[in-house]
Each structure stands twice: as C-alpha cells, then as structure tokens.
C-alpha cells in the first residue's frame, strides 16, 4: 500500500505533535527485553526515518538516555505532561530518528517488515506472518528495501 504523506502523530494529551515528511526507511518489531520494559508491552515498533524528514511541530520533550542491548546510547523523547514516548534518537546513528508508530494518527497505515529478537519473545505475541529473526537481522538494508517497495 502506498503511504499517504506526510505522516503526522503526537502524544496522548496533544501537546507534542510531530510530522514525518517523506517515506521512512522501514518499520521493525523488536521483542528484546529492553523493548518490553521500555514500552511495558510485549514488543516495540520502530519506524526508522531520516532525521531531515522529521519535524517536531509543537511541544517540548523530556529526554532520558539509556543503553540499548548493544550498549549504544538511546535518547528517549517523551511528552513532559502525559509521558507518551514519541521518538528515540540512536546516538550511534545520528542521521535517523526512530519514530514510535503507535503514536501516529493513522497507525494502521504502516506494517512491520520483520520481527527481531524472537528468541526471547512472549510466545503469545509473535506475529504469524511477519518474517522472524532470533536476534538482530542479518541484512537490515534489504529489509528496509522490502518495506519501501511495499509502501513507496
């Protein structure tokens, strides 16, 4: 399905709003224990977007740094009022922003191209038809190409 752009989203209380102006690189589900704790759910969704295409339209963010499974620093951005996490900066990859697609106004428009860290997944939360990787994917650029072919 061709994605209608821009992709707008924001926090629960409406103070923090953002826009993704061009096609993202791709969307991936992650079942790692860090992502479980970070979301409180069974897995995270990451919509990797070029930084130049991402814009905060309104509101401030509260940031906190934590290390991901690899030890790299992830800077989380949350609304200071309702604490919704809208996006993450991955300090090792300064050209991209990891947008949290559950916060999109039309979250159904994007689908994940792969699920990673399935080795530690909640067995009740594995998506039946999404390709699986026990740990990190071997070729993430190929996955992004597949996603862009589906959505571009």
């Amino acid at each position, binding site marked *: 399905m061709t994605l209608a752009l821009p992709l707008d989203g924001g*926090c*629960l*209380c409406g103070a923090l709003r953002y826009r993704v102006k061009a096609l993202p690189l791709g969307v991936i*589900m992650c079942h790692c*224990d*860090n*992502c*479980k*704790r*970070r*979301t*409180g*759910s*069974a*897995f*995270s*969704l990451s919509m990797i977007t070029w930084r130049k295409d991402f814009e905060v339209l309104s509101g401030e963010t*509260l940031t*906190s740094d*934590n290390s991901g499974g690899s030890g790299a620093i992830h800077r*989380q951005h*949350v609304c200071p*009022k*309702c*604490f*919704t*996490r*809208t996006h993450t900066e991955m300090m090792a990859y300064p050209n991209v922003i990891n947008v*949290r*697609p*559950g*916060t999109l106004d039309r*979250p*159904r428009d994007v*689908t*994940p191209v792969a699920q990673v860290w399935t080795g530690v997944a*909640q*067995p*009740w*939360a*594995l*998506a*039946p*038809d*999404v390709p699986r990787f026990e740990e990190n994917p071997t070729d993430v650029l190929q996955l992004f190409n597949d996603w862009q072919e589906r959505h571009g």
Partner: protein
Amino acid sequence: MVEHRGGCVCGGVRFVAHGEPLRITICHCAWCQRRTGTAFGAEVVFDQAKVEMSGTPPARYRHVSDESGRWLDVEFCARCGANLGFTLEAVPGVRTLPAGAFDDPAWLRPDRHTVRHVFLRSRRAWAELSPLVETYEAHFRS
C-alpha cells in the same frame, strides 16, 4: 506467597506484586497504541492491596475516556518515562502493572493465567491472537 518484581527502565521505581494476578489484559485500543508507541498495551491486573511500589514516587497523568467519561490515572517514572501501569475509575480496588516491566516477563503464561485481548475492532491486522487467549471486539464488560 509468590512474588513478582519489576520496575522502570532506569531503576528509579520498583514494584513487587504478591500472589497471582486477577487477569492479563492485552488492549488494542487506539489510546493504548499511542500510550505505548506499539501495537497494543499488555497490562497485568492485580488487587491494589497486593502491589507495593518503592523508590521515586511515580508521575501521574489523568486521562478521561471519550467514550465512557470516566478517568484513568496512568503512572510513569518521572525520570525515564517508562510506563508503570494505571488505576481506573471503572474498576476500583485494582491496579495494573505493565507486562513488559517485570524482571522475568516469561512468568506470564496464557495456559496459567486468564489472558484477554480487548478492543479488537482497532487491532493491527498483523498482530497475533493466540488461541489460548479470550477475545472481545470492545471491552469484556460491555
């Protein structure tokens, strides 16, 4: 009595739940998708008296439902922003703790606990529905 421990990402807030949960609710509503940034919320429901919070007091955000007009108080770590569950006007005496916030997430098992998927009407089409789990188009009370 069995104990289940967990906490936020930075470790500033910790909790312990004594005994087994009343149920686990996997909620696919649009609000939970936004709240978590992912496809659904997964909340473990306990008798409020059986949960002890420790460390930094959680921050709170009150949401009033568009549909029912009732409040829901969502709790977070004020430092790292991680979800710490909520209490609901509609269900007094219970609180939730996020499934992902437990130190051992694997203790939650559909074959041992009551697990329900709710608000399937807004479900992401690719998300799994385990045959072990009860399913509801809206809430199981409605």
